[in-house]
């Protein structure tokens, strides 16, 4: 791996060297390196691009890294990664895609991930998307499908920073009895970039719970659209929050939909879009920061805090 590739890998997965646990590193549409452990088995799919990741029952305090890096233009990389997480697990899964495209051609990565989380298991899923290079388009279209079994818990932290030309992001989840899904999605766009993000969460089990928080920063003439559909079919709790900061001539659209199909469902949505609050700027300026420094600090905290 050259210096540029190592840098991309570090940015998306905080990896400085090869990870110690299970991993699968994909580079420019091909396998770069892979390792399984006795608890986590990674095998390639036979009929299409992608891998199956099987995590044994009772696996605790283990991690899986599956980063993707693309450093060429003209690549259309479609990959299917299916996670089968057994019962009573507690694992960290780190994914993400870094594109550096210095050519005039488009680089496109579509990661279709499915998660089957077993009973009483706990999963933290971290996904970073970054794109660099001034010339060709850099497109990322991730799809995440989730099935949470009884009393399981999944926390998703996604971050997409400036540089991605366009992105269509979909997350579809079905929650069983007592299952919890927490999502923190942070997206920043600039120039003429656009991102559309869509959540459909079915609270199918009694006492299931979903909390989705989306933080958007749109600069330049960029465009972001957030759509969510939270469906309560049982005694359940769901909360969707979409906060957006707009700068320059950017535009943000938020369409939070809640559908209580059961009278015991408790569903809430909140959406707030606007410029950086002037009282926040004034406070930081009163501590000695210039307006620009204060804006940067507020945005950094909002996206990465």
């Amino acid at each position, binding site marked *: 791996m050259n210096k540029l590739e190592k840098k991309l890998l570090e940015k998306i997965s905080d990896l400085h060297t090869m990870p110690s646990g299970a991993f699968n590193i994909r580079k420019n549409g091909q396998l770069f390196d892979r390792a399984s452990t006795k608890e986590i088995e990674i095998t390639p799919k036979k009929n299409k691009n992608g891998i199956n990741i099987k995590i044994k029952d009772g696996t605790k305090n283990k991690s899986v890294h599956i980063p993707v890096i693309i450093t060429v233009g003209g690549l259309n990389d479609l990959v299917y990664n299916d996670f089968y997480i057994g019962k009573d697990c507690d694992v960290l899964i780190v994914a993400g895609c870094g594109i550096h495209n210095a050519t005039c051609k488009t680089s496109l990565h579509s990661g279709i991930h499915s998660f089957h989380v077993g009973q009483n298991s706990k999963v933290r899923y971290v996904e970073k998307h970054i794109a660099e290079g001034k010339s060709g388009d850099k497109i990322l279209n991730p799809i995440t499908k989730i099935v949470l079994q009884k009393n399981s818990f999944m926390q998703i932290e996604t971050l997409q920073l400036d540089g991605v030309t366009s992105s269509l992001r979909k997350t579809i989840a079905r929650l069983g009895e007592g299952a919890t899904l927490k999502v923190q999605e942070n997206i920043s766009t600039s120039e003429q970039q656009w991102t559309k993000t869509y959540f459909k969460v079915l609270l199918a089990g009694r006492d299931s719970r979903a909390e989705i928080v989306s933080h958007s920063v749109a600069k330049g003439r960029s465009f972001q659209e957030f759509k969510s559909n939270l469906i309560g079919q049982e005694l359940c709790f769901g909360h969707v929050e979409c906060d957006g900061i707009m700068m320059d001539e950017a535009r943000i659209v938020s369409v939070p939909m809640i559908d209580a199909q059961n009278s015991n469902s408790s569903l809430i949505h909140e959406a707030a879009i606007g410029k950086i609050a002037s009282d926040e700027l004034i*406070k930081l300026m009163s501590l000695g920061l210039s307006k620009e420094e204060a804006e940067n*600090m507020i945005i950094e905290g909002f996206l*990465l805090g």
Partner: protein
Amino acid sequence: MLEIINLSYRAQDDNQDKEILDNINLKFEDNYTYVITGPNGSGKSTLAKLVMGILPASSGKILFNGMNITSLPINERAKLGISYAFQTPVTFKGLKIRDLIDVACGQKKSFDQICEILSKVGLCAKDYINRPLDDKLSGGELKRIEIALALCQEAKLNIFDEPEAGIDLWSFDNLIDIFNSLKNSTNIIVSHQKRILHISDYIILLKNGQIEKFGKKEEVVPLLEKRQCARLVRSK
């Protein structure tokens, strides 16, 4: 150290100019504590905001250690040595208490240093250092952190806008101790609170945007107490 010359502030109200502060002239000396008091709407907070640059003066001058700061932005005034604790503390999404302390101090602080800062306002650093400065904190906690941030700046001029608002009884005693300990700075406190009036050196009494009385605490407090008594008698 601070001189206010013919300072006025007008705001638009129903498409008409309304005089909020009218031709204020004041001189603040080094290392004294001044309390600005007066009825609601008298212009107390407006005067404090004009000194910090949060509101622009309509006319007049503000001199800080001889320098004309009337048109300086807020951050330049902060750098010259003016701090400002807000009446309603500002909250953020994603910024931690530690981040704000580092900015207020102008440098990264160690855990022990932050512990020392927060203990001045009765908070334990271990419980607060990595907490977001957001609306999940209580009004009292936010207020104490607001005071701590002002203290971090070690300013030559500290401005506190109604520091007692939203603070609990225990914190109030603590707050009085803090003001009593600020001996090497000039302090301007906007307040209605009797105990705060008593720790001042000078009191500025505002009424309808003008100075009704400016004098030593010993002169102004009896006047205010007399009025308070008269109000009580009238209400009975």
